[in-house]
């Protein structure tokens, strides 16, 4: 059985970016102290999160703040060297599940897939991802088909063999967490002073791009008030 202290959370760039934009990185750092394991980002997520921010003027400061987390060991970089072929295979698989007007819909790119694959192939892992589409691929493939159909105003064809292969893989993943769940964890760990702060933080994360609904925010607050 895996050691509880060997837990790993793989972060997609969307979660780190939502937290950085919401000024929630100090909470993220404190949360690491409550966690019996390590926080990881893959090389691709490093490039999307840190390199891209450092290339821009607008987000450079946030980029440096995330870089500092790596320097302090709060975040660790995970080399993709060993999983690169698997990343490519999963990306090819995911990008041929849905067909729009008889054309395969290339739905994901390498950053998201590298975080998914790392959490699939490492033991005792969780995946933190804020963006909607990758989460739907993992949690609700049928729902994604309906969403695509509504948006393209057409019937979306599904490659059943690819979908079934993907479902077999994705079933091994735990439920994805978002920056919103990390905020709730911060509350549970006593890192926030009152529930209204948590409410404010959840909304800040939502406005920063975390895929959480207003109803989910209200449900969390209602449940934690009990």
């Amino acid at each position, binding site marked *: 059985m895996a050691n*509880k202290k060997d*837990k790993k959370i793989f972060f997609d*760039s*969307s979660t780190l*970016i*939502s937290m950085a*934009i919401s000024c929630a990185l100090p909470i993220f750092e404190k*949360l690491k102290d*409550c*966690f019996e394991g390590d926080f990881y980002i893959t090389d691709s997520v490093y490039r*999307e*999160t840190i390199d*891209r*921010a450092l290339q*821009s003027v*607008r*987000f450079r400061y946030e980029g440096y703040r995330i870089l500092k987390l790596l320097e302090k060991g709060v975040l660790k970089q995970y080399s993709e060297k060993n999983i690169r072929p698997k990343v490519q295979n999963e990306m090819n698989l995911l990008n041929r599940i849905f067909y*729009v*007007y008889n*054309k395969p*819909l*290339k*739905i*994901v*790119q390498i*950053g*998201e897939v590298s975080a998914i694959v790392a959490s699939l192939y490492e033991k005792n892992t969780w995946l933190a991802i804020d*963006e*909607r*589409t*990758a989460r*739907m691929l993992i*949690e*609700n493939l049928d*729902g*994604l088909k309906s*969403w695509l159909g509504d948006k*393209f105003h057409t019937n979306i064809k599904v490659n059943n063999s690819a979908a079934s292969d993907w479902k077999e893989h994705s079933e091994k993943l*735990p*439920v994805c*967490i978002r920056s919103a*769940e990390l905020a*709730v*964890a911060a509350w*549970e*760990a006593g890192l926030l002073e009152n529930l209204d702060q948590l409410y404010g933080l959840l909304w800040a994360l*939502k*406005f*920063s*791009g*975390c*895929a*959480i*609904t*207003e*109803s*989910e925010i209200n*449900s*969390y607050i209602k*449940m934690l008030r009990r």
Partner: protein
Amino acid sequence: MRPEAVNDVINAIDETINALKNKRHAELHAISNHIIHIITIYQDPDLVDLAVAIYALDKIMETERFRTHPKMPEFEKFIIRNFESAKELLLAKKFDAYESLIRTILSNIEGFSKTIKFYIEDVIHFARIKKGTKIYEHGVSLGKATELTRTSKWDLLPSIGETLIHEFPVSELPIEKRLAQINLLFNFKKKV
């Protein structure tokens, strides 16, 4: 450009030229959104440049002060001429020349917006972010949307956060179960 996308692109250019010639500027927004369908299917960044150009024009034209700017008639004629040339190039299957012309149109829109002191500092970048948000709404991943629009996740996430895209739940998983997952992940039963 993907040859199978050419007819759709020509239609979009025709609609844009008509909207500009007939002063139906309000149609530009819908035309740029219509191209999003084509972009998401063919995944061609050069198609994004066309949608971005049309959307940037829409943003400039929607404000009366800019629409009636003394320099606008000359600029509008210039843009229409360029779109007509772009269509000719597509019909002649000169795709490289077409892509180069669309980039020229983008840089002219950028230059003009600075001349008239348009309130959005970088109208083309702004338009890329808005189109990226729309592509993400169509159901491709955030990473794909940034790749197609030549933006970053840093650019798109706050823009997405201002929309209702995330008001549609990802799955039926109840919050109770998510909370239980958090407690399991962080061993809170022991700590709290």
